[in-house]
């Protein structure tokens, strides 16, 4: 049965203790480095010291993070907390997909990589029907044309475009 504190708590309770402990440990480690990572400049006012604002930030993180941990409705880790932490690890895969996409664009080109990435990712997500995969390809083309060709956002031309013949090479570098 849940306690009044647990009933009044906003959000899920599972995982809170792990997050709060991790946050506090991270803040305390950073605060312990303040002597090495910031400088105290002589003949400078207290509020203008380079160390002042990192100290405010980290001091606040330790103080309020500690108080948050103390006020948690349950401070003893349970199996449900570990299950929640396992769920936190799941998006790591998507983050790696994203980094792979980032690394491939300057080599193979924004248009080809996007046209491959979107349907591949949709396939990974469990979509197997051809119309939705083609919709993914179409979405990729629209994104590239809109941002690179129309809005001219700064995405460099791919290394592979160097092998294209004269006019086509500059057209692809500029637009795709």
């Amino acid at each position, binding site marked *: 049965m849940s306690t009044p504190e647990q009933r009044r708590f906003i959000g899920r309770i599972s995982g809170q203790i792990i997050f709060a402990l991790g946050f506090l440990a991270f803040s305390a480690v950073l605060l312990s480095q303040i002597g090495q990572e910031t400088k105290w400049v002589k003949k400078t006012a207290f509020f203008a010291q380079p160390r002042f604002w990192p100290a405010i*930030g980290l001091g606040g993180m330790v103080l309020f993070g500690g108080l948050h941990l103390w006020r948690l409705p349950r401070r003893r880790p349970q199996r449900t907390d570990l299950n929640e932490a396992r769920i936190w690890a799941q998006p790591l895969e998507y983050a790696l997909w994203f980094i792979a996409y980032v690394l491939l664009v300057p080599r193979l080109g924004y248009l080809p990589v996007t046209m491959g990435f979107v349907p591949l990712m949709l396939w990974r997500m469990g979509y197997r029907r051809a119309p939705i995969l083609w919709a993914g390809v179409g979405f990729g083309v629209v994104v590239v044309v809109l941002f690179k060709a129309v809005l001219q956002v700064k995405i460099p031309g791919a290394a592979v475009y160097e092998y294209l013949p004269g006019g086509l090479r500059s057209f692809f570098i500029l637009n795709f």
Partner: protein
Amino acid sequence: MDVFLASIEILMRWDVILALLTGSVGGVLIGAIPGVGPAVAIAILLPATFSLDPIVGLTVLLGIYGSSMYGGAIPAILINTPGTAVNALTTYDGFPMTSRGEARRALSLAYSASFFGGIFSVLCLIFFAPILARIAPMFGSREIFLAALLGIILVITAHRRQTLIAAALACFGIFINSIGLEAVKYTKRYTFDQAFLSSGINLIVVVLGLFALSQAFYLLQGDDEKTRITKLKGGLFQGLRELARHPRVATVSASFGVLMGMIPGVGEFTAQFLSYTYAQKSSKRPEDFGHGSSEGLIAAETSNNAVPAAAMVPLLALGIPGEALTAMMLSVFYVHNVVPGPQLFQNDMPFVVALYLALLLLNVLVLVFLLFATNHLIRVVKLPNRFLGVCILTLSFVGVYSLRNSVTDCIIAAVFGLIGFVLKRLSLPSVPIILGMVLGGIMEVKLRAGMARVKSPLDFIDRPIAFILFVMILGVLALHFRRVWLDHKELREEKWAIKHASTRFGAHLSRRRNFLLTERGKQVRARRSMLSRPSTDKN
């Protein structure tokens, strides 16, 4: 009059008109898709607007901000899922109307109420612009520091029952902002001798990570939801007539929206809560609220749409954003070397008025678009979650990579995406991190400048506005501590209801001690020892 004509001239440019159209239609579409929201869209589009003129870029972003709430009402009314977070209250009365077969009436009323809220707030601001222009120059470094401090305190205290973690996350934002080469003494702060940290962590990278990538991860990790949409019957213009029958609720709700929008950190939720409570208390049929009341729907939609224009006031007049979306817009100003604040009102008033007029036109465009395109628009509500997740992931790349073509930025954004995902899972707020970064930067610069001119700490508040702001900070803190005390009392009462003894640990120990020391305790122990079986041990 000259200012007005000059601002009309700015608005008549073809690129500004195109930006208005794109922003308004795009914002409605984004709002109508549950799971995307204006924060994700603005974060993604932000770097793309850097190459545009400030007025064009800001018009697109403002368009998305202002019109997303119109679109957000569609899924809130039709499938009981708010398109944007601020449409949550719309579901209370909108969806019951749909269940009764009055979906079109609910949509029409929501559009009309939103339109009224939007127009009312812009007119208020145009009317008050000359007064603001007179007050804004009275804000020096000290006043801006105190206003930023007030903003950060309001943002933290607005997260009721999550204040401690909101404060910790705001401090995390202040810390992130301090990383890198510090601009006055040129010393490194928390760079750990890594070259990529010397230039600091970019606000937009953090914003994209916390809002766009985390949302993509959240959608990809979840399941697709099946949605059934009711067919729309009837006219969409009836809402305007129905709104005209409730002028008092509409006006009061819009006024709450304007007032709450102007206060940093407060925003739509408080405005909606106040408006809805007022509408319910003053209604002849309060029992209908939550079961499809037209007044409830008007209160919710009018107040949230009155906020965007009002939220631009602290940003334009003082350079202080009150929430995450205006914090993102601040970076558009910085990129173009336009410094929002008192000087903007003094030197570039046509620009300010043009922005307000753009918001006014935007509301008209959105209403017209929605009245004619709702039937087609409701299809986007059905987009599957994981498909959307893939789309957001793809679009996030444009936002992060186009900033500096840096893979490191993308890795940092991915890390913040994972942090944002954890925060989302735990229902913890990520907005304090962004506001801590933005307001922390402002406070650092303004405190240094302000303290250079004061001899004693009391001199810091010797000017009227500084003193008023200081009193306001004390007032907000006092109110917050009072609320914490009342919450604590309420919790104790709740515990008392299920427990007969005192809930205090001290009292528990004291009772135990008394028991052990009293004569009765001794007697009881003596009696119990008599009853216990004699020892059979032989010495």
